[in-house]
């Protein structure tokens, strides 16, 4: 059951290792109570931290992160205190902010008009969340595989067959885990990582279609293995096409893309990308989930007789 917390762990790790959607990477340290007006101004454009004293400010800047202090000089001017290893653009950004604050230049003074593609989400974070969503769908299949191995070890499948539960009902019941876990896991993952504003019906469509292939592989691995470790190990082989697809989409040129067309994860990744960007239409979502469904249906036709026979 510990597998159920895996999506949550993914989400926490993603939050830790990637900048948040609304986060800025620039942090400025000011002296507490020295210039409240300036502090309010900086808060519009950066994270502001306040130090109790000059000594405390010096100690804070010497810490590992890239915080930059703007401190009062001997006369009425300010000096910028850094460790020295901060990126130049961060230092320049703080320099400019200090100058703008000094001359009281606000957003309304800008003559530039902003035109945007509307991509507000950091691409690395989107990639990580997308990967984690597909990974969660594989976990659903993995749970099915482990569950069937346990049923085989306990020899309980025959007992279930001697109850009014039909074989189809038994398979459907097991498959439910392979759907519910990815759907719930993905929703938790998206909420925790700050994607609460996207279309969750799109998410549901993409996740349910993408988990079919994992469910089928989960059944086959459960049937073919008598050992939990072997079943889990074989399920991990699914990570190969998963990571291959992501690498294909992100790193390879268009001419190489057809090499990945047979992998359902490839289409899921592309569909999820639209969903996470919140710019996919229903038509596009249906297209991607339809392709995944089609490939899964082909795999089902091949594997269904083996699954049925294996569960007898």
């Amino acid at each position, binding site marked *: 059951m510990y597998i159920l917390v895996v999506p949550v762990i993914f989400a926490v790790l993603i939050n830790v290792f990637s900048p948040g959607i609304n986060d800025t990477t620039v942090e400025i340290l000011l002296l507490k109570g020295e210039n409240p007006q300036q502090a309010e101004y900086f808060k519009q454009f950066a994270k502001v931290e306040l130090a109790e004293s000059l000594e405390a400010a010096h100690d804070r800047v010497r810490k590992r992160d890239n915080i930059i202090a703007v401190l009062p000089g001997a006369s009425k001017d300010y000096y910028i205190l850094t460790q020295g290893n901060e990126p130049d653009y961060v230092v320049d950004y703080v320099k400019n902010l200090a100058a703008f604050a000094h001359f009281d230049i606000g957003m309304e003074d800008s003559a530039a008009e902003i035109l945007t593609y509307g991509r507000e989400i950091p691409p690395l974070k989107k990639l990580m969340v997308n990967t984690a969503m597909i990974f969660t769908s594989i976990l659903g299949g993995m749970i099915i595989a482990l569950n069937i191995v*346990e049923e085989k*070890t*306990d*020899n*309980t499948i*025959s*007992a*279930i*067959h*001697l*109850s*009014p*539960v*039909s074989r189809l009902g038994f398979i459907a019941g097991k498959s439910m885990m392979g759907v519910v876990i990815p759907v719930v896991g993905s929703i938790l993952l998206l909420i925790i990582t700050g994607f609460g504003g996207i279309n969750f019906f799109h998410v549901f469509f993409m996740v349910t279609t993408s988990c079919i292939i994992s469910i089928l592989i989960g059944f086959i691995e459960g049937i073919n293995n008598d050992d939990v470790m072997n079943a889990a190990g074989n399920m991990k082989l699914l990570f190969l096409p998963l990571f291959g697809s992501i690498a294909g989409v992100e790193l390879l040129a268009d001419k190489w893309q057809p090499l990945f067309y047979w992998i359902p994860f490839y289409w899921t990744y592309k569909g999820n990308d639209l969903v996470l960007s919140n710019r996919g239409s229903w038509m596009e979502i249906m297209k991607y989930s339809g392709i995944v469904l089609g490939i899964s249906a082909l795999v089902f036709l091949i594997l269904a007789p083996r699954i049925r026979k294996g569960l*007898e």
Partner: protein
Amino acid sequence: MIKVKNLYHSYNNDENYAVNDVNFEIEKGEIFGFLGPSGAGKSTTQNILVGLLQLQKGEVEVAGYDVKHIKDKMFNKIGMSFEQSNVYSKMSGIENLEFYRKLFDVKTRDPKELIKLVGLDGKENTKAGKYSKGMKHRLTFARSMINNPELWFLDEPTTGLDPSIAANIKDIIKQENEKGATVFLTTHNMYIADELCDRVAFIVDGKIRLIDSPKALKLKYGEKLVDVEYLKNGELIKEQLSTVAESEKARIVEVISNYDIQTMHTKEATLEEIFIKVTGRGLV
């Protein structure tokens, strides 16, 4: 309750039949013993009857259902205790029964009552994985009763159990039969078959060699003799007397009337002896 006509089954779909032209009928309320050595075709026949194996050839009717077109509802009427215990090791005894009862559409028995019936009270909350082999076997046996089966399949129900528990299991089988359950008992233990069964079938190499009641078989195949030991003038005398010949019948009466009888046994055959006589094979 069960009708089997010209039943054949081959595991390789060839002419090498594990079950070969088997025919029998079981009446409602009967305890029917299916006796045979390992590999005789007992389990294959039983698995076809309960739908665990697909019917290939023949006609089989179980509890009013045609096994060729098996209906899920049929399983509300039947119960099966497997030879190899098959319970969820990660669930406790009571959880196993609670889970299984939810699978049925009919009124089920109280799991606590069943736990007590098979002597597992006090251990009902222990994970089944920690049970001994005998305890698991009893839990499997208890589970087979959860739906009050009209037709009860028992595969070696007392194997691996100590004599007192085996006696308890036999009592439970008798009680359930008295309540109306029809029992299909698969075993190679002739003592249990002798004690419990109204009729037995001997199966060897996939073929039924004989079906009859244990009593009729004993009368048919047993020797009509009595072994008697008695004391005569302080000396132990042994005699074997016919229960058919008139002169020896009179001698039996004379011995009983005049001497101190030490032991007296009729020489009826055991089911195992009859089985060997009929099939030329042992029951192991």
